[in-house]
């Protein structure tokens, strides 16, 4: 096999058994790699009804054939498991350098099983795999953990770890790697914490190969990244979207009671560039450089780190009605250090702010004035959540469980109990379907129709209608799943679309995938994830978006009067997918895809 390393590491933390298995070749070909292969393994090996935080759950780290090859933006790995937050399948994606290092050590992926009695970390150097005691780093933040473990093992090693949030089973905890990169969503950090696994430290000096001809193809495709959009990622990062989304009226504010934010210019990509940007940063192989290395000097929020990116600006900024860039950046730094998902964190705080505003929670209970716009309180709540301190202990359950606790789940802006992203589906209508049908819950990285509706990628479609959106969502979902499995960053495909990466996949593996095969592999993945969720008990009724978006019209701005529409799109979508009215894949569809 070329491109794929061909080996999977299986580690049982209960009985400390370590096994090296062959990657099933036909599985690799059917699913390309990463997300697809891991989802299939999870479906085959884990009861979908299992409690995400129990030892019976498995935690899978997996790369794709282009990961670590120096392919444009080929840095990605996935973390696949049963989510304790959404109670559905979780598949969180991260970049940095850890995935490439794992392949250089000789593995496509790692399956973690069971639960260690005491805190441990894994030290993997090529064929040598050790389960080591982690008492020296348990309780330490992500950056200190990275420093200490690299000193303890090898300064060239790469670290994926949890912070205090993951240890304390915060349901929105992330797995962090290379200090500031994160597999953030769906509480995968809590799953790692539940297994008493603090970190996976990897050093790979063996390397892995690809098929002949890869080099020239790689150079050719790298050179496609030359236009304004590619440059835009480097100049403004993903926060280039702040101004655009605010102008078209889809930047959520005030916990989704508004879709424009007057303070947007203060937290935009330009504001970041002018006020806090130190330099841009890339993941392994990246040709875009959207990473923001930043520094805040405001004494109230002083610090240094990476971010914020667009979603974080919405989560700590507009939806909390905060236009203090220093505070937004600081909240992001704390998330990185304590190991938490910045989207879910910010949107959970916005939910708490609304509960506070309406008097359902009191200043006495919170310990401070949690009004919208209070930047200091917001930042303090982030820290308290990561440490499960005081009121933070309640925020640590995410906004759905928080709002339900006070009898008002309608203030939680979630799909499948996971906080939705920064594109208001009342103005970008297809996004209702994107959020509702995403197997991992509210999220923008699976078939986001906003790219077509607002940014015109791959081509512009009307944003305020629902017609045709089911087909757009389906196509983007399938291609996106294949891309995740390939090990490539979604931003790369935003710039040059998918075909170049099918060509590069063939160049790396020596196979002959067509674009149709590629899309089909994504469809298989999407059906596998759906099957997992169906068996976990999540069907049509779980494919929902917050009631507010369906019922409360946007009060002002370019999208004034609009509401989100879901049910007719869902009907279309299930039909196109070959699923029944309840959202369950039909036997015919599963046969057609070769799943059964």
């Amino acid at each position, binding site marked *: 096999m070329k491109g794929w390393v061909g080996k999977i590491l299986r580690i049982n933390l209960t009985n400390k058994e370590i096994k090296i298995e062959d990657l099933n070749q036909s599985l690799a070909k059917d699913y390309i790699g990463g997300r697809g292969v891991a989802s299939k393994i999870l479906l085959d090996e884990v009861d979908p009804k299992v409690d995400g935080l129990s030892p019976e759950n498995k935690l899978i780290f997996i790369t794709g054939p282009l990961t670590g090859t120096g392919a444009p933006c080929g840095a990605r790995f996935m973390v696949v498991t049963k989510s304790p937050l959404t109670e559905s399948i979780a598949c969180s994606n991260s970049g940095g350098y850890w995935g490439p290092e794992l392949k250089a050590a000789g593995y496509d992926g790692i399956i973690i099983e069971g639960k260690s009695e005491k805190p441990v970390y894994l030290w993997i150097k090529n064929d040598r795999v050790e389960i080591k005691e982690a008492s020296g780093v348990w309780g330490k933040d992500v950056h200190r953990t990275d420093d200490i473990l690299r000193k303890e093992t090898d300064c060239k090693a790469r670290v994926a770890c949890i912070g205090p949030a993951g240890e304390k089973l915060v349901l929105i905890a992330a797995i962090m790697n290379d200090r500031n990169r994160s597999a953030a969503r769906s509480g995968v950090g809590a799953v790692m914490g539940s297994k008493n696994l603090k970190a996976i430290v990897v050093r*790979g000096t*063996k*390397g*892995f190969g690809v098929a002949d001809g890869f080099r020239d193809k790689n150079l050719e495709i*790298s050179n496609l990244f030359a236009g304004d959009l590619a440059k835009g990622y480097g100049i403004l990062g993903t926060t280039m979207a702040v101004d655009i989304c605010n102008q078209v009226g889809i930047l959520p504010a005030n916990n989704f009671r508004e879709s424009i934010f007057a303070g947007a210019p203060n937290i935009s990509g330009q504001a970041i560039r002018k006020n806090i940007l130190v330099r841009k940063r*890339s993941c392994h*192989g990246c040709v875009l450089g959207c990473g923001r290395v930043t520094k805040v000097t405001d004494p109230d929020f002083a610090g240094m780190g990476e971010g914020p990116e667009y979603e974080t600006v919405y989560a700590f900024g507009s939806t909390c009605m905060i236009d203090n860039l220093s505070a937004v950046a600081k909240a992001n730094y704390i998330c990185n250090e304590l190991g938490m998902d910045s989207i879910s964190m910010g949107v959970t705080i916005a939910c708490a702010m609304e509960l506070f505003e309406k008097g359902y929670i009191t200043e006495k209970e919170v310990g401070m004035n949690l009004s919208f716009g209070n930047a200091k309180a917001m930042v303090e709540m982030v820290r308290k959540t990561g440490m499960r301190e005081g009121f933070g202990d309640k925020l640590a359950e995410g906004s759905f469980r928080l709002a339900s606790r006070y009898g008002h789940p309608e203030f939680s802006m979630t799909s499948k109990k996971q906080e939705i992203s920064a594109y208001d589906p009342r103005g970008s209508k297809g996004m209702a379907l994107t959020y509702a049908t995403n197997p991992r819950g509210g999220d923008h990285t699976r078939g986001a129709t906003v790219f077509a509706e607002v940014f015109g990628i791959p081509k512009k479609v009307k944003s305020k209608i629902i017609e045709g959106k089911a087909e757009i969502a389906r196509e983007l979902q399938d291609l996106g799943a294949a891309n995740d499995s390939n090990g490539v960053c979604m931003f790369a495909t935003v710039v040059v679309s998918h075909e170049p990466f099918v060509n590069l996949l063939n160049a790396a593996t020596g196979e002959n995938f067509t674009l149709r095969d590629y899309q089909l592999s994504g469809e298989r993945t999407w059906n596998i994830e759906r099957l997992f969720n169906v068996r976990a008990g999540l069907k049509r009724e779980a494919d929902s978006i917050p009631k507010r978006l369906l019922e409360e019209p946007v009060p002002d701005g370019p999208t004034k009067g609009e509401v989100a529409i879901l049910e007719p799109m869902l009907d279309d979508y299930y039909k196109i997918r070959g699923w029944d009215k309840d959202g369950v894949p039909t036997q015919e569809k599963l046969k057609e895809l070769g799943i059964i």
Partner: protein
Amino acid sequence: MANVIHFKPDKCTSCKRCETACSHKYFNVFTNQLSKIKCVTFDEENLYFPVTCFQCNNPPCLSACPVDAISKDKETGIVTIDQDTCTCCGACVEACPVKHIFHYDDSGHVIKCDFCQGNPECVLFCRDKALEWREISDEEKAGRDKLFSDLSLKLEGVKEL
């Protein structure tokens, strides 16, 4: 004056494409262990050093070699190791102030950058123009000397990259 790989750390974004290009060209695999260019990153200070061998005027590695296996080409300035003469003693590895001469396997074999004999692969793959293949001005030469001493200081006490 001959071409050199001109390093511009300010432009570097730490993408490591130079490293993958190098290890793939010479060893047909991807791992920075086998790359002769290394982008050395200091996270706390946000410093990235995408550098390879500086092909020094008076190479410490050459002086340190007990068997005269290392030589410097008068015309191109490129410093190379004669693998047949090399005894893998590692004196050069210890002598290099910027740690850009490497043991690459357990047998102790030593490798270093030779600018791909005039067609450097890393420069082709660098998208941020942090590496350029060209002649440099006296001013740039001074900057290059400063970079060398800055990195030497940072790597003091480090055994090998």
